[in-house]
């Protein structure tokens, strides 16, 4: 069963076209990685899926329902959540207040405060601290937990490893296993090819707004990914 179907997606920032006819599928229970260099259009694609930057052409369907023209809050309530690039916690709210906002308009499901603290036990230590006063790794945990509180069917994660120490990236990636076990599908946007491949079932490469390669994570060759990533002629 296809959970998310994206067809022929053109997204613009003003006059600047950021994606060109992007096609993408995510099956229920699947983890899909989207990799690409700076400015490839990865964040733009996620923003279009959740309705923050509406697509100009193309369609987006969630379990068959056309959600292309829905507003962001309606899409979110239908079960798509975003862990945004740069974390973007509400800095003047405490960690727990951030989480509570995540659950205020949530669908029913297994994710609640207790489950979130169970996923990231370290969060209990700073639950009452203003979110603006956390380290990058701490912020990332809260950003993931906040999105999970929505009990999404599909979780979009935009460069969760950006700017974090390798040990902390490992901790963060470890949580995706448990998130998938709660039958949440994943889209992981990454610049780190190896990590993206290891954490996903399938990969898409995005180059200058176009899908240049896709395939099962275990099968696509690293060389082919590198070529698709940097736009060199495939060796």
């Amino acid at each position, binding site marked *: 069963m296809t959970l998310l179907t994206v067809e022929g997606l053109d997204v613009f920032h003003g006059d600047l076209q950021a994606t060109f006819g992007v096609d993408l599928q995510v099956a229920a229970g699947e983890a899909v990685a989207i990799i690409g260099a700076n400015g490839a259009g990865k964040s733009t694609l996620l923003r279009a899926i959740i309705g923050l930057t509406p697509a100009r052409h193309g369609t987006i369907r969630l379990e068959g329902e056309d959600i292309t023209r829905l507003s962001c*809050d309606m899409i*979110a309530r239908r079960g798509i*959540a975003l862990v945004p690039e740069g974390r973007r916690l*509400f800095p003047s709210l405490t960690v727990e207040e951030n989480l509570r906002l995540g659950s*205020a*308009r949530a669908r029913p499901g297994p994710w609640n405060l207790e489950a979130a603290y169970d996923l990231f036990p370290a969060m209990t230590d700073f639950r009452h601290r203003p979110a603006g006063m956390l380290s990058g790794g701490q912020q990332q945990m809260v950003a993931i937990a906040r999105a999970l509180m*929505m009990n999404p069917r599909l979780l979009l994660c935009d460069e969760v490893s950006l700017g974090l120490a390798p040990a902390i990236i490992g901790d963060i990636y470890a949580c995706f296993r448990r998130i998938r076990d709660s039958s949440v599908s994943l889209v992981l946007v990454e610049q780190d090819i190896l990590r993206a491949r290891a954490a996903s079932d399938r990969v898409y490469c995005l180059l200058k707004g176009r899908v240049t390669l896709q395939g099962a994570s275990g099968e696509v060759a690293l060389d082919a990914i590198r070529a698709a990533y940097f736009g060199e002629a495939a060796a």
Partner: protein
Amino acid sequence: MTLLAAVLNGLMVGGLYGLFGLGLALAFGIMRVVNIAHGEFIVLGAFLGATVLAVTPLPLPVVVLVVAISAFAMGWLMQATMLNRLVGPNPIPAMIATMGLSIIIRNALVAVYGNNIRAIDIGPVQNLGIEVAGVALGVLPLAIFALSVAMFLAVGLLLRHSTTGRAFRAAADDFEILETLGFNRRRVYALAMGLAVTLAAVAGLLLAVRSSFTPFSGIERLLIAFQVVIIGGLGSLRGSFLAGLFLGVVHVVGLSLNPNVGPLFGHLAFILILILRQADLPAILTRRGR
């Protein structure tokens, strides 16, 4: 009026000034709307309350409630029908729209009520007094002060402990992310503006119980609201409250010293604070010390 009585009266008026500022600060902090019609809503609260008091037998507390509910509806409608179309990175369109609205409200008030100076007469309660430690205090000013403190506390509780209040604060931080959590931005904004206008109108009515007003009083009230926000800061309830008290005391004490130039003292105090804030006090003091 003795100095002590003037200070106490100033505190009572100041609590209301604090509410003027709080409403303006909420609208700006949450949706970046500079509501130029804020002063007109303050005056509208007074006219509405005066009219309800005159044509119905309702007691003042009920009239306050009626004005609060109507004001919430007006703020909600203004945001839902007009300002939500104008929100964006540029604050100027909303400012111009509310400026237009302020002109409409002001002229409508003149058309309906004429431009006489008015006062609200609530009967014998007006002059009830009690004596505390040898100082005569009006029951009414005390009740009004208590009500403004209660309104500050209620807004604080709302912002801290309700989903709506958390959504207000989150919208001020990052409205896009709030939308990704399933909140309708326009609805959050309409509720916030409803609250902001409610604070303005209720405080306006309570001030009118103690002092006179005309359809043109909005500008002065708006100026006070701005001064409260600038002295007290945007994000702080306590700041608004204390700044309101400060300006209220300066106004009333100034009036008791010289009835002709009362407001002038408030503006001078405001400018003084701006200058002091600019000045590098520690540097000045150490230079003195040497």
